[in-house]
């Protein structure tokens, strides 16, 4: 177990390095960090200005601009090559300094602290929705496999799987908010109840397609499990069907669901970009869209790292969870 943990930790660190380096290089090659710091002056041809005549008064301002630019370059290490900057950035990270946003000088840690709760609430609610829907649904579908309900739900889950997040969001918004006026159409932060209530639609948007994929996996696995001898044995023991379903069949059938739970975290975070956009939720998803299009390096990198970290940790926890699901894994 200790070795397993250590290997996982090494992997986590390696993945974080790779992911952040990927993000760091991508942003440096694709975007222009200097522009974010000094704005238009980033485009000044300072070498030419320095070379210009010292007497030319029209260059005075340009010269002072160039000094500002040079200062900014030094402050943000923009004069160093990308790998060096990356290492400097890592150094800052390790010492707990997440840097400050280029955009508004806010410390990145604070931005994340402000935005993370909304996204966490959204993701947790979405997972609650998806598991809450998928488990009963999968159980009933498997129990009545190939009957009318199951056939109907296969179609329904296929349908849900085929609705893109943004389309589902728009449809739910139209039906549940505009047409029937059950839920608010946008984010509200007035009270906790209002907040949670306004998160219902976004959570449904994220959770329902996931519920469909959970349901499909659970149904398939449950049908396989229900053909296992130990289920027959349980029936021969005279246990009632639902008890067999939940006490015997469900747990060994959760492997795929748990695996997808891990993988889906990434997909959910991706989905939250769109969903937060539709419902105006000031969360991490919207923050990263804003930050990416503005080349706000420190914010993007911190969020990417956060997401990658979450992804790796959740998958790590999924591995641990496997051994709860099936003691045989522990022996391996």
């Amino acid at each position: 177990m200790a070795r397993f943990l250590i290997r996982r930790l090494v992997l986590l660190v390696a993945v974080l390095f790779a992911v952040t380096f990927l993000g760091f290089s991508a942003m440096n090659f694709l975007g222009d960090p200097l522009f974010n710091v000094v704005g238009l002056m980033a485009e000044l041809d300072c070498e030419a200005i320095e070379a210009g005549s010292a007497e030319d008064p029209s260059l005075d301002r340009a010269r002072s601009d160039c000094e500002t630019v040079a200062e900014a370059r030094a402050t943000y290490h923009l004069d160093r090559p990308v790998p060096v900057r990356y290492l400097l950035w890592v150094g800052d990270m390790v010492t707990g300094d997440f840097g400050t946003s280029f955009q508004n000088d806010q410390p990145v840690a604070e931005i994340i602290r402000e935005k993370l709760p909304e996204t966490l609430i959204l993701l947790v609610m979405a997972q609650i929705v998806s598991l809450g829907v998928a488990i009963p649904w999968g159980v009933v579908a498997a129990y009545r496999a190939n009957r009318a309900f199951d056939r109907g739900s296969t179609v329904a889950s296929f349908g849900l799987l085929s609705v893109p997040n943004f389309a589902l969001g728009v449809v739910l918004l139209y039906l549940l908010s505009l047409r029937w006026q059950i839920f608010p159409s946008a984010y509200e932060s007035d009270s906790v109840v209002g907040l949670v209530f306004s998160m219902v639609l976004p959570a449904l948007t994220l959770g329902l397609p996931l519920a469909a994929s959970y349901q499909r996996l659970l149904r398939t696995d449950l049908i396989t499990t229900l053909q296992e001898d130990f289920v027959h044995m349980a029936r021969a023991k005279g246990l009632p069907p639902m008890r067999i379903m939940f006490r015997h069949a469900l747990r060994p059938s959760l492997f795929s669901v748990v695996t997808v739970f891990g993988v889906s975290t990434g997909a959910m975070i991706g989905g939250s970009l769109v969903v937060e956009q539709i419902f105006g939720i000031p969360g991490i998803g919207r923050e990263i869209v804003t930050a990416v299009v503005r080349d706000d390096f420190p914010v993007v990198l911190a969020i990417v790292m956060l997401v990658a970290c979450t992804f790796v940790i959740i998958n790590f926890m999924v591995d641990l969870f496997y051994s709860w699901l099936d003691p045989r894994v522990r022996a391996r």
Partner: protein
Amino acid sequence: MNPDGRPSRRGRASRQRLLRRFRVFRLVRSSKGPEPGGPGEDEAVRRRLGVGFWLAVIWLVVMAFIALFAPMLPFADPTKVGYSGPREPPSAGAWFGTDALGRDVFSRTMYGARISLAVGGFAIVFGMVVGGALGILAGYFRGRLDQAVGFAFFVLLSFPALVLAILITATLERSLLVVSLTIGILAVAPVGLLARASTLVYAEREFVAAARVLGARNGRIIVRELLPNVVIPMGALTLLGMAVAVVAEGSLAFLGLSVAGDEAISWGKMIVDGAGLRDLQNATHVAMFPVAVMFVTVLALNFAGDRIRQYFDVKELAF
């Protein structure tokens, strides 16, 4: 076998026979035989594609046809502003009504298939070529290469896909090629993992072992023995992957980061265009028709893809 290690003529012939015997187009075999009333039933279902499959295929063929030949078909000019009044409900003249600029929503929806399918198709082909090649090499050679490729895939998967996509499309020119490549890159890791897994299965199989013992070169084994077997499960997942790619393109378009330009009509773009609260309330058709067509197309891709997956008995993947 000859002393020099090369297979003799007889050896080669028997090898061929051996290989033919073991060439099984199955990735995962069902664990139980066709026991009466047992899972054997599924086996039979699997061997038939069914009406739904053909309906899905017909829809996809029609959409592909429309996408290819839209300019030659008798559709209204999709970019023409003021084809009719703005936000008019569906009518005989404009089947899907008109949007905020009075453009014909039906025609735009039909043209929308072009970008969606082009991006989806290109992306999955790219993913299969690059991811497939990496996956097969990793699965065949194992060792360092496998570790490196596996790690790269894991990193790609850890990087939130849509973030990577907007990172690229927000900074580069949003041409069809860039958007397709971006989504293609996202497809590399999942497809690669599948190719690697399939390769691992077949690399252990007797026919590959036999080929190896009989002294075939690696390249030959990969191309002649592994590739045909690995391509089947990958191919079976093409349509499913394409569905994912079409949705990814739609998400980018919804964020305003897909292919730019007035000619670049995309379903995601149309949906976000009609998704303003007021439009949604007063001119629901503007968003809902593209939603419906996109939904049916993705559904068809998923359905046909799933049927093919079952047909070839490839395990369901979550990506």
